[in-house]
């Protein structure tokens, strides 16, 4: 996924997804489960609503003093013996890591799940430089073996059925494994255990970084996040700069709602607070810690339309409830981040042009905003993106003409009435049993799968005079 426009247009990618029976089955299972887990968790958590408001406020307040918090974070990390790098672009972040690998003789790096590293396509760059990246999160491990990209922000392999995973393992690892998640998980545990112990470098993202104390926070379930930050001699954390939060007290607010929103757990199995490289007397831990603070398009949104999208905790809740995501899955979106927030993040990282179709991949139902732990108003920003697409004249001419016509009819009752009369005339050859079942041109997009009521013989406005009698 480079900056070249994607080869297949979005509607075609969506079409392929809709026709993929395995994908449809996997999506239904996964999203339905996630929705239930989240619902149950918040149902038993009356304090949750107020905490979401507080979390949102903390994110906004942090942005209002972002420079000070980042400065404090960096000072603290350096004071503890860590190194801080400033990457304006994804390319730079990649280069920093490659340089570290070169300078430190890194041959193999184990990775804990990090969307930030997906965003900068790190694995491909490492491989090209002769460094072997090993994904250790089970979902990421699966897609690495399959040479695919993640299809969900927190469950990367959710598009695969267990049968597909078993086949994949059997093929790539040699052997015959049953389609049983327990069996397959045990296979991954065994394969990866040795890698943790042998790797030169551990690469993670960061869910949060506490400015006040210089702490990098990782929220995980499998234990690979802990392995990766304790066993190899170098730890590199790649972090979008908007992940900084001021204090430990703030951190507790986020921890109270993050896992609930993502998986319905009160807390994930492991929340790991990393403060610098290993301390004297510790028998384990990295000799070096490198924190890469990355911009990659985020700064531009501080005063931009997508500022609110900087609050995102990357929990994935919006994906699970999105009627579009639930039907087409993550890959059809075509970029690193899928789903409702993914459209906004793609615009942030790649520009408005990249989302000229995706901005419309939404029925604006608002379910995403409902479940977002920090109440990001995604629908509003999607509409604003649509406005940008219109303003920058990215929308096709045909569409702009149709809307121009619609606007005129809405502004003029005379034109509106004329439209109704013309519609009644034009539809005559198409009315079957009181319905329109097959219309030509653009209207065929509707009637291919749905009937349409015809324009009424008498509109309500025309009937009013009969009604307007006591």
């Amino acid at each position, binding site marked *: 996924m480079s900056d070249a426009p994607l080869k297949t247009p979005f*509607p075609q990618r*969506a*079409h392929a997804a*809709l026709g993929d029976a395995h994908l449809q089955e996997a999506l239904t299972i996964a999203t339905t489960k996630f929705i239930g887990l989240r619902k149950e968790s918040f149902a038993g958590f009356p304090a949750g609503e107020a905490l979401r408001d507080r979390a949102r406020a903390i994110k906004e307040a942090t942005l209002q003093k972002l420079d000070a918090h980042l400065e404090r974070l960096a000072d603290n990390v350096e004071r503890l013996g860590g190194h801080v790098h400033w990457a304006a672009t994804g390319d730079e972040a990649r280069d920093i890591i490659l340089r570290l690998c070169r300078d430190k003789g890194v041959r193999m790096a184990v990775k804990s799940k990090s969307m930030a590293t997906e965003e900068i396509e790190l694995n491909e760059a490492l491989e090209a430089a002769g460094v072997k990246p090993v994904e250790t999160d089970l979902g990421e491990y699966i897609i690495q073996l399959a040479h695919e990209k993640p299809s969900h922000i927190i469950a990367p392999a959710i598009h695969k059925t267990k049968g597909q995973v078993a086949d994949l393992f059997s093929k790539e690892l040699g052997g015959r494994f049953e389609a049983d998640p327990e069996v397959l998980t045990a296979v991954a545990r065994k394969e990866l255990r040795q890698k943790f112990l042998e790797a030169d470098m551990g690469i993670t993202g960061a869910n949060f970084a506490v400015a006040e104390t210089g702490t990098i926070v990782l929220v995980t379930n499998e234990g690979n996040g802990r392995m990766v930050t304790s066993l190899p001699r170098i730890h590199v954390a790649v972090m979008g700069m908007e992940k900084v939060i001021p204090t430990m007290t703030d951190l507790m607010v986020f921890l109270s709602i993050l896992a609930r929103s993502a998986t319905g757990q009160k807390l994930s199995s492991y929340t790991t607070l990393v403060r610098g490289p290993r301390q004297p007397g510790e028998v384990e831990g990295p000799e070096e810690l490198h924190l890469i603070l990355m911009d990659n398009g985020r700064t531009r949104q501080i005063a931009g339309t997508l500022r609110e999208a900087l609050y995102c905790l990357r929990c994935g809740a919006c994906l699970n409830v999105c*009627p*579009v995501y*639930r*039907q*087409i899955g993550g890959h059809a979106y075509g970029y690193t981040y899928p789903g409702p927030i993914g459209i906004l993040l793609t615009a942030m990282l790649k520009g408005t042009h990249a989302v000229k179709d995706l*901005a*419309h*991949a*939404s*029925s*604006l*139902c*608002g*379910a995403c905003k*409902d479940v977002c732990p920090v109440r990001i108003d995604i629908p509003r920003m999607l*509409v*604003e*993106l*649509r*406005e*940008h*697409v*219109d*303003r920058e004249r990215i929308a096709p001419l045909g569409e702009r003409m149709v*809307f121009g016509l*619609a*606007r005129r*009819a*809405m*502004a*003029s*009752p005379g034109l*509106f009435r004329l439209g*109704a009369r013309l*519609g009644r005339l034009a539809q005559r050859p198409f009315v079957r049993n009181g*319905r329109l*079942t097959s219309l030509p041109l*653009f209207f065929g*997009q*509707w009637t*291919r*799968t*749905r*009937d*349409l*009521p*015809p*324009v*009424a013989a*008498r*509109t*309500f*406005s025309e*009937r009013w005079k009969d*009604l*307007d009698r006591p």
Partner: protein
Amino acid sequence: MITCLGDLLFPEVGVAMVKLLRRLGVTLDFPEGQTCCGMPLFNSGYHHDAALVAARTVRLFERSEHVIVPSGSCAWMVKTEYPGLLEDDPALRAPAEALARKTYELSQFLVDVLGVTTVDSPFKGRVTYHDSCHLLRGLGESQNPRKLLRAVKGCELVELPGSDECCGFGGSFSVRLPEVSTAVLDKKLGNVESTGADCLVACDAGCLMQMGGGLSRRGSRVRALHLAQVLEPEAGA
């Protein structure tokens, strides 16, 4: 406010609403020259154009005491988006806010303004109710329509699984991405049919057009009706 879809495609819903409200003692008028609330323009990003339409609508209803709308999405548009669209217009800013305050979706008007929770209706049948997105999430309304339906003696209300899930309409979404829209619709209709209801009720013309269109295409015996048609079934087509 009749709404564009209501005027052109579902006049019987408007008629039912009028008869119902009159039966309940409400005096109605109908400002002439209504077209559309402008939401299709707004949602597709044509905000400047939407503001022009909003301005027109605000003027049209300037002298109305309450504005009743048989559609959750249009009521939402007027109540939540009109003030923002017209906030830079010194002449229309206050009237837009006033219109926002005095506009009601039908079920909200019946219960919250008229204080009516029981409407006598000869309607008989098993119904299931779909929560339209803008009424549910935009206006926070899920109880009133159910209350009204339950209070109709001959009406048996069965909960719709996934009632709060989108029907797939989304305005232009339904024709920009018709395949995805239809896939979402199929899921919705599967749920509807699982309830065994003879009637699907909703408070939004867009949803009714989408769901009714799907039901009709699959030859389903389930009828898609507006709440007003359950409360005033003999309004005549």
